[in-house]
C-alpha cells in the first residue's frame, strides 16, 4: 500500500524488505520455515480434503470403519443432494421404462425413483443473493461511512465508532430473539431483504473499522488537490480516493462475504421456507437411516466454491490489504 500511495515519500517498499529478511536468512532456517508452512497447510487442508472425498463416496463407504481412503468414486452424493427420491417395490421398478439419464440409472440401482428436485438449489441461490447483496451494501455504506469518519470532524466520533463496534460484542444468539420480534412486526421474517439488512448491519462494524484504517492511510492532499483543480468533493472521492482504496475495499469485501456466507445462527433462527440459506440446510440432508453424509459433503464442497473463487480473484489485493499495516514504514 505504501508503495502504491506514498511512493512519493519513500521509494523503498516495505513488502520487499520483509521478503528479504526471510530470503536472506540461513538455508536451515528457510527449510524449517517451509516445513512449518507445509505442516500447517496440511492440517488445515485435511478436513477439506476429507469433505471433498466424502462427496464422491457412496453412503455405505462414507460411514465404513476403518474409514476408506481408497474407494470407487460415485456421484451418488451429488445426485442425492439435488434430488428427492422415494423407494419403490421391485415390481414397480420392473414396470418402468428403461432409465433415460445416468442419474436416473444410478438412483434406480438403489431401488428408488427421482420424485423431483431437492431444495438445495433454492438454498444455494438464497445464499448467493443474501451473501453478495449484504456484502455489497456493507462495503458500499462502509466506504462512505469510513470516509466521513476519516475526513470530517464528526461530533462524538469516538463514541460513534465504539457504538458501531459494539454491535459485534454480543453473540448472535443473544440478540436473535429481539431481532426475531422486530422482523415479525416489520414483515421481514424469512425474507431476503430482512437477511440482507441483518447481515449488512452486522458487517458494518467490520467494514467501517477496516476501511477507516485504509482511508486514514490515503493522504487527504489527494482529494484536496482535486478539489482545487475544479472537482467537487464527491467527484474527487470517486476519481481519486476510491482508486486508492481498492485494496482495502477488496480485503473488506472478502471478510464481509465470508461472514455473510457462513453465518449459521441467524439463518437457522430467522429463516425457514422462503429465504433459508445453505448453512442451516446442508447439515440436515437426510438419507435412508440417518444423515446422507455424501450429500452433505457434496453440498459443503459446492458451498465452498464461491468464496474460494471470490478470494482467489481478489487474493493479490487481500494479501496487500492485510499485510500493509505491518510492513508500512
Amino acid at each position, binding site marked *: 500500500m505504501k508503495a502504491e500511495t*506514498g511512493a*512519493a515519500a519513500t521509494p523503498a517498499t516495505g513488502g520487499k524488505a520483509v521478503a528479504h529478511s526471510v530470503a536472506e536468512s540461513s538455508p536451515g532456517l528457510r527449510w524449517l520455515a517451509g516445513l512449518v508452512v507445509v505442516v500447517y497447510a496440511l492440517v488445515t487442508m485435511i478436513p477439506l480434503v476429507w469433505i471433498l472425498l466424502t462427496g464422491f463416496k457412496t453412503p455405505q463407504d462414507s460411514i465404513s470403519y476403518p474409514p476408506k481412503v481408497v474407494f470407487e468414486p460415485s456421484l451418488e452424493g451429488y445426485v442425492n443432494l439435488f434430488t428427492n427420491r422415494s423407494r419403490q417395490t421391485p415390481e414397480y421398478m420392473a414396470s418402468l421404462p428403461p432409465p433415460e439419464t445416468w442419474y436416473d440409472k444410478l438412483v434406480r440401482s438403489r431401488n428408488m425413483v427421482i420424485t423431483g428436485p431437492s431444495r438445495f438449489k433454492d438454498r444455494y441461490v438464497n445464499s448467493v443473493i443474501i451473501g453478495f447483496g449484504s456484502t455489497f451494501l456493507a462495503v458500499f455504506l462502509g466506504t462512505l461511512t469510513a470516509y466521513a469518519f476519516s475526513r470530517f470532524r464528526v461530533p462524538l466520533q469516538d463514541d460513534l465508532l465504539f457504538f458501531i463496534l459494539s454491535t459485534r460484542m454480543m453473540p448472535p444468539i443473544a440478540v436473535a430473539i429481539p431481532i426475531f420480534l422486530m422482523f415479525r412486526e416489520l414483515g421481514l421474517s424469512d425474507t431476503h431483504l430482512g437477511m440482507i439488512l441483518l447481515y449488512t448491519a452486522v458487517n458494518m462494524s467490520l467494514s467501517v473499522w477496516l476501511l477507516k484504517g485504509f482511508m486514514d492511510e490515503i493522504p487527504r492532499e*489527494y482529494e484536496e*488537490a482535486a478539489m*482545487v483543480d*475544479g*472537482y*467537487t468533493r464527491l*467527484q474527487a472521492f470517486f476519481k481519486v480516493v476510491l482508486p*486508492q482504496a481498492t485494496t482495502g475495499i477488496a480485503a473488506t469485501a472478502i471478510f464481509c462475504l465470508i461472514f455473510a456466507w457462513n453465518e449459521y445462527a441467524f439463518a437457522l433462527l430467522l429463516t425457514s421456507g422462503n429465504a433459508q440459506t445453505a448453512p442451516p440446510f446442508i447439515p440436515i440432508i437426510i438419507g435412508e437411516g440417518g444423515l446422507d453424509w455424501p450429500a452433505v459433503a457434496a453440498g459443503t464442497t459446492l458451498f465452498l466454491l464461491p468464496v474460494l473463487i471470490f478470494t482467489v480473484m481478489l487474493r493479490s489485493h487481500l494479501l496487500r490489504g492485510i499485510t500493509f499495516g505491518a510492513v508500512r514504514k
Partner: protein
Amino acid sequence: MADVALRGVHKRFGETTAVEGMDLAVADGEFLVLLGPTGAGKTTTLRLLAGLEKPDEGEVRIGGHDVTGEPPAARDLAFVFQQYSLYPHMTAYDNLAFPLRAPGRRLDDGRIRDRVTHIAELLHIDHKLDSKATQLSGGEMQRVAIGRALVRDPAAFLMDEPLSSLDAKLRSELRLELARIHRERGATIVYVTHDQIEAMTLADRIGVLREGRLVQLGPPRDVYEAPRNVYVASRLGSPAMNLLPGDLLPVEGKPEGTATVGARTEHLHIAPADDGRGVGTVRRIEHLGDQNHIHLAVGEHTLVTLADPASALRTGDPVDIRLDAPVFFDRDGEQLAPRTR
C-alpha cells in the same frame, strides 16, 4: 491572473489559533513569499486562500470578489502541495491532464494534449509522460506536481513548500525555473517556505509569520536590512544574526533604550588584535569551502560570522571587533531607529 487578499481573517482549530487577524493583499502578478517556522500559520493561510479551510472570521477575496463562501473548485486557483500531490494510479500525463479534465472547465482532448506536452517540455519531463507516477524520481514527481498547476491559467498559484522535499541541486534548479515562469507569465504566486534563500531570491515581497500573525511584510531587502523585531531578524541571514547585549561592544549611534544589538557579517569588522589583547577570541573556524564560519568568544557570548577563506585568523587568536551600523532593538525586541548625529 488576479490579485488575492485576506481581510481580517481568523482561524482556530479547537483551542489552537492558527491564523489571527490576517490582512494580506497580494497584487496581480506579484510573487509573495510567506516565511516562518513550522506552526506559524503559513500553510493555513494558503489553505484559507484555496478554500480548503473556512475562516472563522474575515473574508477571502480573489480578483476583487468575495469568495469566502465558495468551494475550492470555484476559486480558480492552482495549488502545489509539499508532497503527496500526484495520483499514484495515474500516469504522469494523466496527472498533468487532470485539472484540464475537471467538470465545468473541461477542454477537448486535442487541446489537453497540446497544453500537457507544452508544460512537460518546459519542465523537462516530456520523456516521462507515459510513466506511472510511482515510477518517477522525487525531482520528476515534484516537476509534475508543479506542472499540474501550470497547465491551467488560474487566478493565482499557491505553493506550499514545493521544493522542500528535493535535494539541494534540484532545489536550486527548480527555483530558477519558478522565477522564470513567474517572470514570463506574470503570474500571481503565494509561496510558503521556511527556506530563507528561496524567500530572498524569489520574492517580490516577503511576509514573515509568527504564531498566526503577520509580523512584517515588505521587499526582501527591507525585511533583511530593517527587520521590525528580533524575531524577523533571526529568520533571515546565514549565519543567523548575532543578538548581543546592548553594552557588550561599543557602537556608534546607539539609541536610548537599546537592549539588544543585532549584528550580521556585514555589520562586523574583525581584525587581529595587534597588542595581543583583543575584545574577543577566535574559538572555532568552520571551513565550508568557499567561505569560513568564524565563531568568536566575547565574554560569555559567542558570535558567528563569515570570513574570507584567505583570512589568516587561527583558533585562539585574539581579535578586535568593530560594529558598523548594526540593528538596535529595545527590551521588547522591537527595532529602534539609530540615533542620527
